[in-house]
């Protein structure tokens, strides 16, 4: 448990107070005991005096009675009555003084009975004396009772004396105990006070040291607070200026937002048109796909026809080769015919002419077949090229069809994207309108922030002044703590 100076002080003073109260209570108790003992002793002393007075009264009554009986002088009678009253009074007083002692009360009852009998006896003797009928023997009886009374008083007195002795003894014991308690209690209280003083001094010293350190730390912290507060004041001013600028910026953004909203609406309209164009483009691409398929089919048909034509061209080439061979043989035959015609001389002139014609025809046939073969070669090249081109066309048509399909997919994606973009632009337009309202609210908020920032700057400057004052107080407190030595 962490102890503090207040706790130490409280504990110290509590201990001292406990010891002091203990000593005081003990002293009070002893004093009360002594007072009671003194009171009891006083009562016992009073009882002893009452016993003395009672004995004296009884003896006075007896003496006066004896004097009256002996002298017959009446002047002794009042003394008897006074003695009787005194005796009764003392018995009553003794009853009161010994009311807490039942034995004494019993003894007083017996004594009262004896005294009353004695008084009755004396009264009787006095009356008989007065009547002259009294005898000396009665007097001797009265003397015996008187001895009993004296003895009874003596017992009561001895009892009271014993009580006095006991009470004196108890009072002495109480007095010594009270003296010891006061003496040792005083020493103990002084020791406690000294110990508590040491503890409190140590605690105060530690507390003072901590307070000094705390004061210095507080001063440093306050200096930092001052610095921070000044910086905060400057920052708050900058913040207020920034809020003003932000307000202006928000207004510009708001204006830009209006333009964005306008452009977003235009973009939405444009997107709708583009969407329609995308639909048309999608249809066109699908038509292109179909057209590509048709082109592919036609190109394949062209290729088949070209292949068929190539086959027929080969047949024609074979025919042309046959014709060429025939022409060659005809040419050879014509040459031999011409030779034979030349060998026949003039008779072979007509044959030579026919041979010449045959040769001419053969040559023409050869030339034609050469041309045909050349043309067939060209046709074959063209056909081969056509086949190649048709094949390429088929491939390109297939490629185009694939591209058309890809383009269809792309256009479809573009269309979908345009749809999404259109929705997005519409959302942008709607969001921009909401954003516009938010910007206006934000502008108002920034204006409020600027005003609040100005107020904050004023408050911060006041706070800086207060903190400066606090720093001065802290320094003064540190100086005061430094001056306070424990």
């Amino acid at each position, binding site marked *: 448990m962490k102890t503090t100076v207040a706790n130490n002080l409280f504990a110290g003073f509590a201990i001292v107070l406990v010891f002091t109260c203990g000593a005081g209570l003990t002293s009070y108790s002893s004093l009360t005991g002594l007072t009671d003992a003194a009171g009891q002793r006083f009562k016992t002393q009073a009882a002893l005096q009452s016993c003395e007075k009672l004995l004296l009264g009884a003896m006075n009554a007896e003496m006066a009675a004896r004097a009256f009986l002996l002298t017959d002088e009446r002047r002794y009678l009042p003394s008897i009555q006074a003695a009787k009253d005194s005796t009764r009074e003392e018995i009553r007083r003794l009853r009161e003084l010994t009311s807490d002692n039942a034995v004494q009360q019993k003894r007083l009852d017996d004594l009262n009975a004896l005294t009353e009998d004695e008084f009755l006896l004396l009264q009787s003797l006095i009356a008989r004396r007065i009547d002259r009928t009294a005898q000396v023997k009665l007097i001797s009886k009265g003397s015996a009772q008187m001895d009993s009374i004296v003895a009874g008083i003596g017992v009561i007195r001895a009892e009271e004396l014993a009580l006095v002795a006991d009470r004196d003894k108890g009072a002495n014991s109480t007095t010594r105990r009270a003296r010891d308690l006061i003496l040792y209690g005083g020493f103990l209280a002084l020791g406690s006070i000294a110990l508590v003083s040491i503890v409190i001094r140590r605690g105060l010293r530690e507390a003072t040291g901590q307070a000094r350190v705390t004061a210095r730390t507080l001063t440093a912290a306050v200096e930092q607070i001052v610095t921070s507060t000044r910086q905060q004041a400057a920052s708050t001013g900058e913040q207020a200026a920034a809020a003003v600028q932000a307000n202006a910026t928000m207004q510009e953004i708001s204006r830009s937002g209006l333009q964005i909203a306008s452009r977003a609406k235009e973009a939405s309209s444009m997107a709708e048109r583009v969407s329609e164009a995308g639909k048309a483009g999608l249809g066109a691409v699908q038509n292109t796909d179909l057209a590509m398929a048709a082109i592919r089919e036609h190109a394949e048909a062209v290729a088949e026809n070209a292949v068929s034509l190539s086959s027929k061209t080969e047949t024609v080439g074979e025919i042309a080769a046959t014709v060429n061979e025939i022409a060659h043989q005809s040419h*050879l035959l014509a*040459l*031999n015919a011409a*030779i034979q015609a*030349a060998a026949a*001389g003039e008779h072979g*002139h007509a044959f030579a*002419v026919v041979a010449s014609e045959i*040769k001419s025809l053969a040559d023409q046939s050869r030339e034609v077949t050469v041309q045909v073969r050349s043309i067939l070669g060209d046709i074959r090249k063209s056909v081969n090229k056509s086949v190649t081109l048709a094949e390429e066309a088929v491939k390109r048509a297939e490629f185009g069809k694939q591209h058309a399909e890809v383009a269809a997919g792309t256009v479809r994606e573009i269309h979908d994207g345009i749809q999404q973009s259109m929705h997005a632009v519409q959302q942008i337009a709607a969001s921009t309108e909401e954003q516009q309202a938010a910007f206006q609210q934000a502008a108002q908020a920034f204006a409020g922030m600027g005003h609040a920032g100005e107020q904050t700057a004023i408050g911060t400057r006041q706070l800086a002044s207060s903190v400066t004052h606090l720093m001065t107080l802290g320094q003064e407190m540190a100086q005061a703590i430094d001056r306070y030595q424990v």
Partner: protein
Amino acid sequence: MGNIDWEQVRPRLRATEAALEQPVEDTPERIASVYRERAKRLVRPAVPSDAGSAGAPMLVFRLDEGRYGIELADVSAILGATRYTQVPDSEAKLEGLINVNGTIRPILNLRFFLHLPVSGKDTSAYFLLLRQKQRELCLRVDEVEFEHRMSLPNLHIPRKDPVTRGISDFTSGTLTVLDTSALFSEFWNERSEP
């Protein structure tokens, strides 16, 4: 690839179809023309009265890049492409042997006598069967063009070669005229003393 003018293609196709539908036989006008041309040639004399001035008929043939002529009267026949047999370890002048209607005839190596380089490719398609003094031999040539009348004394540059008579102008080039007798003599080593 240029654009196709289908308007021009269609008439061509129609014309082609029409041409294919025409009959293969010659028209009567064509036949009549041939007959007229034949008649004109027939009315001309077969052998001119002055054979020397008109020139002797020559058979013109081609060998490699050169054009050569030989008197038509020395040619017994012209054979088409026929297999011939080369003779191992034979003389260079003998190119091989050929079967002509069951008779084996020698083939004179004309390139040997004309000092022509040996051709790497065999393009010869004709064999000329020459006959002189009951002897026959063959010449392997590339192409036979037909007869040509030529005046032998008009040869411009007589050659010193023993198998040639000289060189004459011929259409757009020259014609080397061969001496048939010299060919036979050189082949059978019958060179006459000067």
